[in-house]
């Protein structure tokens, strides 16, 4: 680990001023940053600690949630559990109790891929870590890699569970920077790798995430986060599904679905969502067909074709579970 200089920002202005310098990085919970420093994935000259900023609010309002970027995963989960089960579940199935006590929501969105080549203790051919060095995973171990939206430059997936749930709920990220404040939907926050997998989000280096807004709606209660993994806990998702539904007597009126573990960003299933409208939750065949509609564009790699099948089955399961939760309301 390279030596770096450290300071705690007293306020937002100071933090923003500090990150105008390109050699300065932000640290929040540190559960990603400290690892990157150890592995040489990040090599900042200066580290600005933003934990002193008043960005840790968790506000549940009638029009929706406002979650501060510095709110901790473990603190947010119980507050949102009743009205937004998909969010609480995505938080509580992630990482471990200790990590959730440390990890901030903003940091969670900004975590980077768990691609084993990227995470190696030495530099391997990886365009994300060393642009132009190639992608060892492309024709290497692809079991945990993407089935959607990848490029020859990078086939990695994004590991956040929370981001997938947020994407399903059409949440937005609030960003401040020298050019003022802006709002970006979570689905648009992430970039697919294309030719340059080093740029993963639309967040500029001189900007900070201050909060996340989640709109309320009839669908948030009938929601569910299903994480598929081999170890019963403390493991990233092989595939995950966030599902939120509104329905009328069991007939879907509105469906929102996002997948995790399949692409460099949470993957919304637009076609499935459209196809589900008007379908009865009891009609398993129709549900299956609707789910399949989004998978025509799946492009599995040599070692992960099973994820195409798995993701569809998980989606169907999540839909059914989410649907069962809404029944009482209608």
């Amino acid at each position, binding site marked *: *680990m*390279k*030596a770096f200089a450290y300071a705690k920002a007293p306020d937002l202005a100071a933090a923003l001023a500090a990150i105008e310098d390109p050699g300065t990085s932000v640290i929040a919970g540190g559960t990603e940053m400290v690892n990157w420093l150890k592995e*040489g994935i990040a090599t900042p000259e200066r580290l600005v600690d933003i934990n002193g900023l008043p960005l840790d609010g968790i506000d549940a309002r009638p029009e929706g949630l406002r979650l501060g970027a510095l709110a901790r995963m473990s603190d947010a989960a119980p507050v949102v559990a009743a009205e937004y089960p998909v969010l609480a579940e995505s938080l509580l199935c992630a990482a471990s109790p200790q990590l959730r006590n440390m990890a901030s929501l903003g940091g969670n969105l900004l975590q980077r891929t*768990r691609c*084993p*080549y990227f*995470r*190696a*203790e*030495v530099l*391997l051919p990886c365009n994300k870590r060393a642009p132009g060095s190639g992608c*060892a995973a492309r*024709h*290497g*171990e692809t*079991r945990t890699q993407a089935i959607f939206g990848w490029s020859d430059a990078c086939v990695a997936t994004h590991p956040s569970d929370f981001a997938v749930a947020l994407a399903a709920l059409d949440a937005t990220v609030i960003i401040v920077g020298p050019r003022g404040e802006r709002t970006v939907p979570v689905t648009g926050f992430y970039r697919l790798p294309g030719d340059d997998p080093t740029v993963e989000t639309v967040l500029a280096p001189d900007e900070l995430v201050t909060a996340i807004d989640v709109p309320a709606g009839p669908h948030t209660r009938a929601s569910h986060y299903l994480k*598929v993994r*081999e*170890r*019963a*806990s*403390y*493991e*990233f998702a*092989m595939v995950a599904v966030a599902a939120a539904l509104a329905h009328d007597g069991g007939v879907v009126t509105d469906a929102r679905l996002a997948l995790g573990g399949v692409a460099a960003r949470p993957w919304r299933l637009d076609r499935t969502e459209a196809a589900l409208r008007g379908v009865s939750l009891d009609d398993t065949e129709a549900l*299956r*067909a609707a*789910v*399949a509609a989004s*998978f*025509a564009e*799946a*492009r*599995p*790699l*040599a070692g992960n*074709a*099973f994820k*195409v*099948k*798995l993701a*569809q*089955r*998980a989606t*169907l*399961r999540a839909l059914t579970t989410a649907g069962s939760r809404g029944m009482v309301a209608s």
Partner: protein
Amino acid sequence: MIAAIGGLRRPDGAAKLTGAADYAADTPVDGVTHAALVPATVATGRIAHIDTAAAVRAPGVLAVLTHTDMPRLKTIGSPPLGQSVLPLQDDTVRYEGQPVAMVLAETFEQARRGAELVRATYADVAVPRAFGDGESVTPRPGLISGNPAGRVGDVEAGLAAATTVVTATYTTPNRHHSPMEPSATVASWHGDQLTVHESTQWVFGTQMALAAAFDLPADHVRVVCPFIGGGFGCKGFVWPHTLLAAAAARVTGRPVKLVLTRAQMFTSCGHQPATTQTLTLGTDDDGRLTAVRHHSVNPTSTFDDYAENATGGTRWMYASPAIDVAVLVEHTSRQTPTPMRAPAEGLGMFALESAMDELAYALRMDPVELRLRNEPAVDPMTGQPFSSRPLPDCLRAAAQRFGWSGRPAEPRSMRDGDELVGWGMASVTMDTFRLPSSARVRLQADGRTIVEAGTQEIGTGLPGVLTTIAAQTLGVDPGSVEVHHGDTDLPETSGTFGSSATMGVGSAVAAAATELRDKLDALAGTGAYPRRLADAGLDSLDAEARWDPAERGEGRSIHTYGAIFVEVRVDPDLGLVRMPRCTATYAAGRIINPLTARSQMIGGIAWGYGQAMLEESILEPQLGRFLSKNMAGYLVPVCADIGDIDVSFIEDPDTDASPLGAKGIGELGAVGVSAAIANAVFHATGIRVRDLPISIERLLNPVWDAPTPTTRP
């Protein structure tokens, strides 16, 4: 509840529970220098150049050692060395992760940074040799436990006579021991006296290797290791880092502390090699075996032949007129593999007990019955009598505790909601390794009894076992017994491996305590021993004894046995398996401390669960490296994975094995579990998984298939 189980609480428990127990890296040393290794990034080639300039200039860095300036070391061979290649002795790179330089600095942070700044370039880099690419050959002698090949009877004739034959190939993946404590060495020299605090399963092996490397008499080397944070085999032998730390301490003239990083743990102290095993079983109509063939091949390094003796258990498990076993190796680009809990039978019994299950289905016979029918009267390959063979008792007892009798045989016949339920079982066996050890027991006039043995405590609860043995032999209160251990200045013991410590060290303590008792009894006077000592004007009296297994057991086939039954729940849509309960009954000699023995078996079963369901270290074929060198990429079980485990023992004192009647238990629990789980998965799903681990993709059966495109871009 557990607390109700009898047995002495761990005497070292308080130290471990308060953080007071010192592991190697906890050793306080004044003026210690921190060392960090630079591992090779290629799997095969030659070091063309090492640029150390930036590292040498970095703040706090005291020295950088490479093959050009590293002292030349002498070898003693393996074992006690884990591999024959010594570190930093030449410019050849034989495996990825091999140390190519070592940085010494004032602080840990500075050493680690220094190591990052060393730049090595390589020449003659060739394509790594992967398992399956090369030829399988008969292993050269050396790192082999047992005989790699053996044959009795005529297998071809047996198969020709058989009415049912099952042949299948089973594979197990590369695995890493991954103890929670990374290996660590703290070395310091005082003149030509070397003291090493080491995380080792064998202090005396470490002493031997260091004495040889630096050309010293053994008594110039002291190795200290009271506690070790798990080893499971990877600390059984002596690996390069130990030699490097000692060499660095000599070069710098300061104490050196070298703690391996978690990533380095994947390339520094061996691993369990993958195996490919082919099993052929033939039976007559009654399910009696007519022929057994079990061949296994495993990858080893290019420089040592480590033969994983996977066919070991097949030699004595079942009666058959014809048995043919063989182990071959294949030379690949990797570090030399090493035994890992449970070696040999831990791998071989997955294949044998899976094949027995397949045979039971082929014969439409209950798998327990099939095993009972093939119970041998004598060792089927050697003809020797068994010292004890309570396998049928284990099978019947465990089956009953589990509630096996109501099991419908058909696959997919049990359901609970959306989940498929399966029950599976396997027989369990482990070879018995018996190794000599010495111990000293001293009774003091102040009423304390001191037991002294060089052995290290790895978690098996040996201090409690030795306390019990000494207390029982001398008739004193266990609370008055203190065990001193983990130091080559104490009486010589064997390593804590091969499940041998209770037998070896325990028997030595029993012998020493018996001798001491005789001496005490010979004293004049009556009353309690301390009183007699005082009356005789003595502060203390001691006795030292050595136990040599050669004294007994000659001509006997000595093993441990058990039976395991598991229930799995399979989510057929998502390919997920969980194991809510399992029942296992073992016969493993006399159980000296039921409390800690039970813990060992539970731990072993969890290991078997990891083998069955989670653990796999992928050796990336293009790069020739273990791909995920961390504990988020190499998955071992967590608390949520482990359901209810019911462990029981059958009373089976075996005085052919040791005078105590005790045998080894440390590895037995990890045997058979993966087969029982795979068999239960078959019972639940109808899918026979012959390749471990049982990952999601192996179970995604075509219940329904959405119209997905199979074309790849």
